[in-house]
């Protein structure tokens, strides 16, 4: 039974150590119970995801700019696999070009985050993203038309 006491499984892939720290600090300050797993790069993330034993995450945050395998490539691979249909994917990037944003949505991202400069803003953004993602998850809303750009 879904309740607000349910644990939200969150994955983050980002090659920048500072960013990973910011994200995990922001998450620990939230009200929602969450379990966070961090990855340094796209390849580690994809290796993890392809393991059939794992519990699927509710939401996955992908940095667009990663070496070896970019967030965009990960996005395409994940969306090509039906197994991850209910996983929300949040892409974040420093780019604020409308074209880039629409491109990531077209390729199957649900959420696009323009990386804010300061930590307070980042916390606020993450809170909004997780909140709305939880609304979609707990109310059985249609993930295929779930978009959130912030």
């Amino acid at each position, binding site marked *: *039974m879904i309740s607000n006491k349910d644990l939200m499984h969150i994955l983050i892939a980002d090659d920048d150590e500072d960013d990973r720290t910011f994200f995990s600090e922001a998450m620990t300050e939230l009200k929602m119970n969450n379990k966070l797993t961090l990855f340094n790069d796209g390849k580690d993330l994809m290796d993890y995801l392809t393991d059939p034993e794992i519990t699927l995450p509710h939401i996955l945050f992908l940095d667009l700019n990663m070496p070896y395998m970019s967030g965009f490539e990960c996005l395409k691979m994940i969306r090509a696999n039906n197994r991850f249909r209910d996983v929300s994917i949040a892409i974040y990037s420093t780019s604020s070009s409308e074209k880039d944003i*629409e491109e990531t949505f077209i390729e199957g991202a649900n959420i696009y985050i323009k990386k804010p400069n300061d930590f307070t803003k980042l916390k606020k953004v993450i809170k909004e993203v997780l909140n709305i993602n939880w609304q979609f998850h707990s*109310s059985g809303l249609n993930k295929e038309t779930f978009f959130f750009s912030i």
Partner: protein
Amino acid sequence: MKLYIKYDGIVACRVILQEQLERLDIKYQLLDLGEIEISGVVPPDVMAELQQSLNRYSIFIVDNEKSQLIQRIKDTIVQMIYENEKLPSVTISQYLSDKLNFSYGYITNIFTEHTYSSIENFIIIQKIERAKKLIIEEQLTLTEVSYKLNYSSVAYLSSQFKKVTGLTPSAFKRIVDKRRSISS
């Protein structure tokens, strides 16, 4: 070839419930708003099987009183937004209070306490969900959508749409259309 479907989740859910209950030979009556009256006693193993078969469809039997009320609140809101051609003209607080037989203060407190959100927020998200359906499935114009959902103007609908999704309704439609053409 590709098929496009339109569906009514509420009807689908009702049919699933009927099929599963009948399959297990349980005497029932489907009441309004997510309530089922079961006549007679259902042995625990049959109940467990029912739960398991319903879980496959993401249908859960709610066994906690507060959760039940939350679900009823959500169902009432969804029904309010989807049932008529046009949203009711009485205020939402009055509507919910009348339908659920609790004061609006009590309803909002329980809702906020047990979800990560407020009722207002939930209602707005549901209205925008319906707006998305109307835009994509029924190809309605923004004027028609704002009329159906009781927005005072297209501008107001667009601004609320943008607030909830970060996209304008036209950008939304463009993205969905492009996504569909890619996957074909």
